[in-house]
């Protein structure tokens, strides 16, 4: 290793560097400042801006530090007359075509061009001729363009090509006519597109949702963690006038590197909507009326204790959220259990709970996030990782670029931003058959598999997946969001674990929500209390709660009509039971049916903890106050505990709550070992003409904040009001693309447009949950009928 180290001198300082490093990497590490625009440590070297010119002894002219490899005994001067002159000259040329419209530019105050011009440029320019102007294009709801300001560093272009894996922006034309854009009228649709806003060193690409709303120096910056996916991206939120104005990445190499997804960046918009609750409410004479906290809390306590008294503790139930903090989840289940009920769950999208006793103490990735990059082979099951955990997908993409074979067995073909070995989309039953075929191809000797092996049709794809997993040094079998939603989740999990053991692959999970893992640790499941301790009796799971005879139902941070597989049932149950809502927002339906409403603090408004896919407990504090009388969820639950005279609810602060849970989790080790006890293959669908409704919970419909984030809802990924069919089914039904059909299931009907999409398996009608058009409509994975509309 030390052979690779060489000595160089920069500005009189002795520095050590690794051979082959670029000069700028060495000076950056040593804290020596060199101006730059096009260089970015995560992108390839373009060396097109020439801002980083420095003097290198024995070189006849200044050299760009970003593209000059270090040499033994190199002597560099970054501030000499030659270097400074070169930098000044570059700056003058860069500004020739820049409009200098800083007073009306959103980037003003946090602009690299402004800063570098101040530090290294001249105070005046000799250039008096006209400047070039670029007509702006609309590239979608998230990014504003002002391309007259562009200095052609191509960071945005390289980001798309090298990191996001989808090349949408380019530099067309040449010379003075060169411009950054999409060339044709088109929106930029990558789930990571917002990162170009941070990368752009000038104000050419800025955040559309927060445009013109604040000056950077008026904002205060607060650290937080994203609630939306299990990567747990680290964020800064910027707060002005008491409200969150934007979210940007907080660098954490082990978690999100320097990036965040668009969902993490723009979900804050959902905080401020018309249906945000600002005061406690109580149903009085059939109408929901604002009341004071004490009245609302007493009513809640009474609804719970009356129900327990009248019909026993089994008549109360609570649904928690995978986006709530660990402390909220912990206190919610503690409250329910103190009242004698195990009816508490957070797994709203799950159908099959039959193997829940075999589940790990918390679903975890089975490795560090960084290790995803070193996989040589992976099989992801029921995972649209690109949209659901975009930062994990970036790591898989790096592995793929290094030659890893990554395959998918999914409910439909999800396009990925990297090359896949096999990308299979199949109906629920077919997915099991594919998994079985892979298990057989792996030579799995488990009796559960061999017993039904004859059902499998092993083809080359299955054999290739098996071979890749077996021959790889680092292999993984990962379960994603949609596998949890599978009607036979237990069999999916059993087959996946068989494949993993037969191939020596790591068996892991990509948990869905920002705090799904936390919900397990906190005991927000009906069969285990905090710390994963099995309960004596098993309570109702989220699906059973829908048609159990409940007196009182507590909903904390969830909207079952959007998040549960059987939306029709969820709707009925909320209408029937006495419903207590502890939430940030209240949909129209909830207004009609809630009995007590307690306004809670949202993400960015409360202190708490999220546990991510690798089991990291990430703590954060509130950044802004909740509107009106909203209170942090953990405080609401603490006071409720006191109101009900329950023991163990005297916490002084959130740290005490966390501390109590931490003690309960002290002994835990993460372990995904799964000993399958059954694999069931469902009967084939004999009614050949029947369409089965299939779907997932799309990333931009994942939780109540995201569903309300205006700009995200305008993106292509948030599309709704469509039912997508394979072209074969479309033809068989004699339907044209864009035709209006009425989709029917039992007594639910909804009018939708038809889309042709060959990623959807034959026999399936792709109609995901989560959007307003299907709220209250039937259930996933049940037959639907399509009737052409008028």
């Amino acid at each position, binding site marked *: 290793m030390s052979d690779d180290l060489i000595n160089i001198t920069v500005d009189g300082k002795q520095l050590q560097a690794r051979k082959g490093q670029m000069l700028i990497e060495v000076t950056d590490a040593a804290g020596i400042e060199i101006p730059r625009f096009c260089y970015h440590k995560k992108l390839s070297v373009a060396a097109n801006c020439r801002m980083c010119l420095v003097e290198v002894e024995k070189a006849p002219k200044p050299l760009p530090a970003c593209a000059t490899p270090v040499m033994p005994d190199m002597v560099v001067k970054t501030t000499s007359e030659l270097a400074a002159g070169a930098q000044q000259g570059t700056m003058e040329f860069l500004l020739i075509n820049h409009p200098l419209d800083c007073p009306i530019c959103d980037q003003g105050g946090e602009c690299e061009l402004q800063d570098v011009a101040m530090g290294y440029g001249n105070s005046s320019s000799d250039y008096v001729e006209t400047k070039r102007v670029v007509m702006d294009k609309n590239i979608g709801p998230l990014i504003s363009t002002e391309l007259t300001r562009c200095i052609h560093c191509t960071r945005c272009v390289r980001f798309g*090509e090298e990191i996001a*894996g*989808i*090349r*949408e*922006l*380019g*530099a*067309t*034309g*040449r010379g003075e006519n060169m411009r950054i854009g*999409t*060339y*044709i009228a088109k929106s930029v649709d990558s789930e990571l597109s917002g990162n170009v806003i941070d990368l752009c060193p000038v104000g050419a690409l800025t955040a559309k949702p927060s445009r013109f709303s604040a000056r950077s120096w008026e904002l205060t910056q607060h650290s937080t963690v994203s609630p939306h996916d299990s990567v747990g991206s680290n964020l800064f939120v910027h707060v002005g006038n008491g409200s969150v104005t934007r979210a940007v990445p907080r660098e954490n190499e082990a978690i999100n590197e320097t990036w965040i997804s668009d969902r993490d960046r723009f979900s804050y918009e959902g905080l401020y909507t018309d249906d945000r609750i600002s005061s406690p409410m109580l149903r009085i004479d059939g109408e929901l009326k604002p009341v004071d906290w004490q009245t609302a809390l007493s009513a809640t306590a009474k609804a719970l204790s009356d129900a327990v008294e009248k019909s026993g503790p089994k008549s109360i139930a609570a649904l928690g959220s995978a986006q709530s903090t660990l402390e909220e989840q912990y206190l919610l289940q503690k409250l329910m259990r103190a009242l004698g009920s195990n009816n508490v769950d957070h797994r709203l999208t799950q159908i099959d709970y039959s193997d829940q006793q075999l589940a790990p103490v918390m679903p975890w990735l089975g490795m560090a996030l960084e290790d995803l990059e070193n996989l040589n082979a992976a099989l992801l099951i029921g995972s649209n990782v690109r949209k659901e955990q975009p930062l994990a997908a970036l790591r898989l993409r790096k592995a793929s670029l290094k030659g890893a074979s990554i395959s998918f067995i999914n409910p439909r073909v999800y*396009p*990925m*931003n*990297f*090359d896949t070995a096999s990308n299979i989309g199949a109906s629920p039953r077919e997915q099991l058959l594919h998994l079985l075929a892979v298990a057989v191809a792996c030579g799995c000797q488990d009796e559960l598999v061999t017993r039904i092996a004859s059902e499998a049709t092993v083809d080359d794809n299955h054999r290739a997946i098996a071979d890749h997993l077996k021959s790889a040094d680092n292999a993984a079998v990962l379960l994603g969001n949609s596998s949890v939603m599978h009607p036979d989740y237990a069999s999916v999990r059993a087959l996946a674990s068989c494949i993993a053991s037969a191939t020596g692959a790591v068996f892991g999970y990509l948990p869905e929500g920002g705090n799904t893992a936390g919900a397990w640790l906190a005991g927000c499941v009906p069969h285990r209390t905090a710390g994963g301790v099995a309960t004596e009796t098993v309570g109702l799971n989220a699906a059973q709660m829908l048609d159990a005879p409940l007196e009182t139902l507590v909903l904390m941070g969830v909207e079952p009509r959007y998040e549960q597989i059987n939306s029709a049932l969820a709707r009925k149950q909320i209408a029937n039971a006495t419903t207590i809502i502890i939430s940030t927002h209240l949909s129209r339906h909830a207004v009609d049916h809630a009995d007590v409403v307690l306004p809670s603090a949202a993400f960015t408004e409360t202190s708490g903890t999220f546990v991510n896919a690798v089991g990291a407990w990430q703590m954060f504090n509130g950044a802004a106050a909740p509107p009106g009388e909203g209170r942090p969820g953990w405080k609401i639950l603490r006071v409720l505990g006191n109101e009900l005279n329950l023991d163990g609810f005297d916490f002084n602060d959130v740290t005490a709550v966390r501390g109590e849970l931490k003690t309960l989790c002290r002994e835990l080790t993460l372990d995904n070992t799964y000993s399958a006890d059954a694999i069931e293959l469902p009967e084939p669908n004999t009614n050949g003409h029947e369409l089965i409704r299939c779907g997932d919970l799309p990333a931009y419909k994942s939780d109540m904040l995201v569903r309300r984030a205006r700009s995200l809802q305008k993106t292509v990924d948030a599309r709704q009001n469509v039912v997508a069919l394979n072209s074969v089914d479309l033809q068989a039904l004699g339907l044209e693309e864009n035709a209006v059909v009425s989709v029917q299931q039992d007594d639910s009907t909804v009018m939708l447009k038809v889309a042709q999409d060959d990623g959807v398996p034959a026999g399936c009608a792709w109609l995901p949950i989560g959007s307003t058009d299907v709220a209250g409509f039937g259930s996933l994975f049940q037959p639907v009928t399509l009737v052409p509309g008028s």
Partner: protein
Amino acid sequence: MSAATGNNGVLNAHTLEEIDEWLQRYPADQKQSAVLAALRAAQHQNNGFLTVELMDAVADKLEMSKIAVYEVASFYSMYETKPVGKHCVAICTNISCMLMGSDTIVNHVENKYGIKLGESTADGKIYLKVEEECLAGCDGGPMMQVDHVYHMKLTPEKVDKILDSLD
């Protein structure tokens, strides 16, 4: 990834054949090397200019992202990305030709057709291309390139003869 190779008949058999021939000269995983030749063939097929549809078809054929093809097509002046007349008349106006009187030639042609450099005649026959570079025919200046043929030592009369003989 845009790995689709669907061409939907946008590129004709002759163009595809030509692209395939170029593809043989490059490693299989570097199909984009053939982009210049492919665009030239596609432009030829379409009487001298490219459309987005053609560029998209080239992108699919070479497994490139579409924007990367637009970048190439918009960078090189030998590709036309707007509709132009069938015959491309490029009068060199670079330094040697200018000294030899290319202005007179340009004026003559502009008056002859009533259009300016960069425009095409209404009947779609003639396109007066703005030639930005020296065409390396300085020894015969003033000169012009009509379609792919060089014509040297031009006079207005000579130009008339050449242009009038175009079909």
